[in-house]
């Protein structure tokens, strides 16, 4: 059976078919772009942070009394916290990774702002940080207790040793990727810092920053009066340890302000909140669009069958087999879907181009378009399947009977 008669019959009854085609075109344009953006966001959210972020929490601690001794407080608190059951390790730190708050600065591979340069998010902390953060050292060593500088006055400059992420070290020394430990780099005052350890991978302060994996730990505590404590617990003990730590800190010294305890997981979720909101909304829209398109195709196919019972009966009476009737409707549907898909491809590319131009989203990946086209073809055929089967059941006697 040729497609020509189907096509000319379509042309005579074009309104319904055209509506289905428009719907399919719009659906393709929406779904392809929505799925693309969603997958982008899910990839971003699924990146490993490098931290043991499921088992960590943090809070701020601030002293305010007149003769308050900041370093005595930090030392006593740390001694107590590290001894508590369920605690893996704890560290004083100026900001919490993944929280969206932090500091960054610029470093150079040579003095006088020469050579390669790179910005880095830095954390002022102590020799327990590597363990408290749960990051993996790829090379070199952790800070020694003697590396840590307890600085009472707010002056510029970092101590002379640093533990840095591989991403940051490689940005400064792209040619020496296998001997990063021991390299010296410089701040904007040409003060040297030595890389003593390299962290395999770790995320810093801002998850939306394209250099989120450039991080430096600096062995610096002070000057106070405020600091944050980062505490890592044994797996599964987070809640119990949080309750215990809160009361232990207040009990040890009630004369300071202990801020609200927040899990690192919570910081992470709120940093990714807008990404997950976008992903959820777009997934819901995608699902709904697909369901409605399928229902629309189904509804119109049913309608087509209903209005053509006499025609189908006549065809059956003059010798068409059930198979012919099914394939007639499937072919008709396929033609309409194809028209929709063709227009939809152009529309999807236009929308994708416009989104990336207007809103700085990444350019649409063409695999998604191919997948969308295949998916809609299948969806269109599935939705028309049941009405086509019903059409095949029309008895040849319908040809002579009135409706």
């Amino acid at each position, binding site marked *: 059976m040729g497609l020509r008669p189907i096509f000319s019959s379509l042309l005579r009854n074009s309104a319904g078919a055209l509506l289905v085609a428009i*719907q399919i075109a719009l659906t393709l344009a929406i779904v392809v772009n929505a799925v693309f953006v969603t997958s982008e966001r899910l990839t971003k959210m699924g990146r490993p942070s490098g931290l043991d972020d499921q088992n960590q929490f943090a809070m701020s601690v601030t002293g305010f009394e007149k003769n308050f001794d900041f370093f005595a407080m930090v030392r006593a608190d740390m001694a107590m916290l590290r001894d508590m059951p369920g605690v893996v390790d704890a560290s004083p730190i100026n900001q919490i990774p993944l929280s969206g708050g932090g500091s960054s600065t610029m470093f150079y591979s040579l003095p006088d702002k020469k050579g390669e340069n790179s910005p880095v998010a830095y954390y002022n902390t102590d020799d327990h940080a590597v363990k408290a953060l749960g990051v993996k050292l790829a090379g070199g060593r952790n800070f020694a207790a003697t590396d840590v500088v307890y600085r009472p006055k707010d002056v510029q400059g970092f101590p002379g040793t640093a533990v840095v992420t591989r991403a940051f070290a490689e940005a400064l020394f792209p040619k020496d990727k296998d001997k990063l430990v021991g390299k010296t780099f410089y701040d904007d005052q040409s003060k040297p810092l030595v890389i003593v350890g390299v962290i395999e991978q770790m995320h810093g302060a801002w998850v939306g920053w394209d250099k989120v994996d450039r991080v430096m730990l600096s062995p610096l505590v002070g000057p106070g009066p405020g600091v944050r404590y980062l505490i890592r617990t044994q797996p599964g003990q987070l809640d119990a340890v949080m309750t215990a730590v809160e009361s232990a800190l207040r009990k040890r010294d009630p004369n300071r302000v202990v801020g609200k305890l927040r899990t690192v997981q919570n910081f992470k*979720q709120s940093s990714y*909140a807008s990404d997950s909101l976008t992903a959820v909304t*777009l997934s819901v829209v995608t699902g709904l669009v697909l369901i*409605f398109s399928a229902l629309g195709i189904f509804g*119109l196919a049913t309608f087509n069958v209903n209005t053509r019972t006499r025609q189908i009966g006549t065809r059956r009476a003059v010798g068409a087999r059930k198979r012919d009737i099914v394939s007639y409707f499937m072919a008709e549907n396929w033609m309409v879907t194809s028209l929709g898909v063709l227009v939809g491809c152009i529309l999807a590319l236009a929308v994708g181009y416009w989104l990336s131009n207007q809103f700085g989203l990444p350019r649409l990946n063409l695999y998604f378009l191919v997948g969308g086209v295949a998916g809609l073809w299948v969806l269109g055929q599935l939705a028309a399947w049941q009405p086509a089967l019903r059409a095949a059941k029309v008895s040849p006697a319908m040809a002579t009977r009135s*409706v």
Partner: protein
Amino acid sequence: MFAYYLRLAVQSFRRNPGLTALMVMAIALGISVCMVTLTSYRAAARIPLPHKNEMLYAPNIDSWDPKEPYDKDKALNAPDLQTYRDARGLYASTIPDRKLIMFKAGGVLSGGKNMQPEYVAARMTTGDFFPMFETPFLYGGGWNAKADEGPEPVVVLSKETNEKAFGGANSVGKTLLWHDREFRVVGVLNDWEPAPKFYDVSNGSFDDPEQIYVPFTWGQILELGSDGNTNCWKTEDIKSYQDFLNSECIWFESWVELRTPEKVVAYRKFLDDYVIDQKSKGRFARPLNNYLYTIEGWMQRNNVVGTDNKAMLIMAFAFLAVCLVNTVGLLLAKFLNAAPIAGVRRALGASRRDIFWQHLTESGVIAVTGGIAGGLLGVAGVWALRSWYGRFVQDLERALPVDYSTFVIAVVISLVAGIIAGLYPAWRIGRAAPASYLKVQ
């Protein structure tokens, strides 16, 4: 006649309840998705103090690095914050009717009657802050220019802080300790939740307002740094707090109130003159790049609405379009299915126009039903979004209020959309020749 059409419509719905439900659902879901995205868009795009939009201005001047712009993606923008010297320099102008400079600091507050010491965020600002931003006062008021100069040890508390410190009583005249210094309460704000927090977008457009307000000059006396963003570009040897104040680091924000267009012109000229004068002193090496933003312009410059919000709104309306095309197709199918009935009505004397209006009424009823269902679904959606989002974003009522006017918009949109969707099918059915349907019957 309309009532008769309504009755006919109900009869028609009874004939195909499944198809009718599908159409109502299509419209309802399309509308509800639009409503949820529209709510979050409108919440972000709302302009606080709309009646002062043409009066309040944020000046921006470009003190940044001669070698590269402040924002590489938007090279024409000047930095959103100012150095201490420039903030003071702009504040010295006598052109504005009102003016303020400010930054965000923090410190431990203690000494209230029943207060646990607490680390509070403080807005270090000048007295005009309160009348310029029309903050509502529960007790007392702001402070005057004399208190700014002194500076006098005065403080304005937020309602919440007053509740913590004094159990909500009138605390004007009482004292509190902040940074170990006594401050006298001169005013307590009532609930004041500017959303978006337009005057401090660099630190988060939906952050909470600060818990206390303290005269600006105390910042320098207490040697306070910023609790928000501080950005520096220049290599400077900073040894003391004074060095820091004199550096090219930016962390201050200015606002001015200019009530007449003449003052706006004069102030623009003042900004240019100021920068040209600074250029002669070897600063401001970048091209003359001064801006005076209204509140609305300031929010746009800082992209408060967010690109995701805009893209999502467009996606939602595209989804509504799919739903509508779907409804047009289903209506067409439904009407043509019932064509014999229309044929009989035509034969009995109904005009084409009657048939058209009858069917348009039917689609209108579907649209309104869908619109109301969609509106309810949308409200439920906003609530769901809030409870889901609220786990890690505080104070969501402010960031995402359920705005019931959006509900009305939803119903109106769906009515209009439903009528548009019904136009073609209703017209088509009205044109069908009655004879062909009568013949077979």
